[in-house]
């Protein structure tokens, strides 16, 4: 997937690129509004990560420009301003997601993956990973063609794992993805464990290999290696 990252903070965009490169994406980075417009006019991208506060313009204007030209591209907005108005405006003019800085790279990655699936297969795709098959549209998961009995949270957990396979996922990142802002990370650690335990049990029961590794004190890893 070709991704354009528009973020003026070089250290941050470097970190995003490094994380996403490992996922097999092709990332390009620009630091200004001007450069972004140039790139959009010349090349085709699958997805864009846009910072709202750019030194020479607003990321929101960039999105408006893209929509005006009817360019099909997934858009994720990142902003330091946790403003509801900005969020609503961003989503209204056509962004797919709105992330507030600081965000977890795993979270950004999961959103990119979901956009990718939607764009490339019009949503009616299957996600296949060794013996595991997911139908995201229907929220169903299979192992060796037997359907897994999962709660909504357990399904989301599996999808998040698969989106960030072979990466260490921190408990904080997991908690935020599954329960959003309302839950303080510390509260949710206990029952993250419960959900993981249930998910792993269900996977093993259907004959799946044990991919979920607990990394002590840190989090989890969906390890395919």
């Amino acid at each position, binding site marked *: 997937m070709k991704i354009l990252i528009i973020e003026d903070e070089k250290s941050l965009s470097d970190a*995003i690129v490094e994380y996403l490169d490992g996922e097999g994406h092709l990332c390009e980075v620009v630091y200004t509004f001007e450069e972004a417009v140039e790139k959009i006019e010349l090349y085709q991208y699958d997805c864009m990560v846009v910072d709202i506060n750019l030194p020479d313009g607003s990321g929101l204007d960039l999105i408006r420009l893209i929509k005006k030209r009817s360019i099909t591209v997934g858009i994720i907005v990142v902003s*330091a301003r946790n403003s509801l108005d900005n969020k609503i405006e961003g989503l209204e003019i056509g962004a797919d997601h709105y992330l507030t800085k*600081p965000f977890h790279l*795993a979270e950004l990655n999961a959103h990119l993956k979901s956009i990718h699936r939607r764009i490339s297969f019009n949503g009616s795709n299957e996600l296949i990973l060794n013996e595991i098959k997911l139908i995201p549209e229907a929220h169903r998961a299979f192992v060796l063609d037997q359907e897994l009995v999962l709660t909504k949270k357990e399904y989301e957990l599996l999808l998040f794992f698969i989106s960030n396979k072979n*990466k*260490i996922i*921190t408990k904080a990142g997991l908690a935020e993805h599954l*329960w959003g802002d309302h839950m303080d990370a510390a509260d*949710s650690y206990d029952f993250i464990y419960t959900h993981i335990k249930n998910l792993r049990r269900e996977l093993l029961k259907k004959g799946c290999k044990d991919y979920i590794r607990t990394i002590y004190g840190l989090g989890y890893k969906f390890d395919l290696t």
Partner: protein
Amino acid sequence: MRLLTKTTLNLLSISLFIYLFGVIAFYYSLRIQVDNNVNNEMEKRKQSIIRQMEEVHTSNTQPPTRNEMVVISPVETAGLADTYADTLIFNGDEKRYQLYRQLGFTETVNNQNYYIRIYKSLEETDRLIVRIIMIMTILVILLIVTLLVINRYSSQQVWRVFYDTVDKINRYDLNSHEAFRLEESEVKEFSDLNRVLQTMTERIRNDYLNLKEYTENASHEIQTPLAIINSKLELLLQSGEMNEKQYKALVDAYEASIRLSKYNSTLILLAKIENKQFPESKLVSFELILTNLLGNLEDLIRSKKLEVVTNFLPYATIQMNPYLAEMLVVNLVKNAVRHNVKGGKLAIEIGQAFFQVSNTGPEQPLDNNLLFQRFYKSSASPESLGLGLAIVEKICALYGFRVSYQFNEKMHCLRVDFV
């Protein structure tokens, strides 16, 4: 004591003092004047008596009226000086003593020495003096009373601006968005005072706003570096080239930076509520918010084995900002869940114009004064930010809701009244 009362009392006591002295002095000077007049009259009378005596040669001449008596008696000695005196003479008709002025002198008529005393009644003049003094007293009292009333009235007019200023300063709130305007006064001192106060508050307000803006900007600017720190740490975690000790340090740093960003965004939220940056307002159903929230918190509630009792008044809505309504409910319920004990109870009630969350928890009641302060934490949960109830309080203050805490039957109860 008010300045007006104080000046009035001063004025009153001084004028009464002066008046008292004035009356006494007036009485005596009047007395002297009257005596002089009477003396003069008696002097004339003396001359006429002497003339009469020389003409008629008779003694013991009695004047016809009681007011002016003359007593003539022959004596040996002569050449005594004229003597004036006041004396009391018994009045047989009225059976009482009356005051008379007396002039005694000797006169020689036809080689016979006479001692002559002329009496003149002071009854009339005395009565006159008393009357004059009474009228004067009444006049002076009237004068003082009128002065006091006028003084009081005009003072109130003059001081009104001052009291208005005091009242406005008293109600002044740095956070309010209303301009601080003081009334104009014709009195120079007051207009000076108001001018100085106005410049002063303006300066303080500007300093305050600058400082606030600075903190808010700082909070926003902190978010980007935090994002960099978080993402770099996350990348570092993926590298997989570290020993356990290094991992541990990394995780601690990572979690601390996440906590920091949570603090930061919550403080930004508090500042925004204070700045009234949530103008949108519509009818919000707390029941809807609660249903969603309880779904979200299901895992947490189940892991704590809490018994949840809900009692919702159907179709209850409240006019407010939907996001703030959510923050209000979320923070109250989350608190009640977090500080609960395993197997405890959680009761949520929506009633006519109130919302109430009760929960089991620590056996002791919490300190009502500290509860809503920022960063107040009970020792039982060091992980919490200590900002949840501060947000609740700010939202309630914004809308004029009353939030109160009670501890009864081992339940901690937080109640919001939408008054």
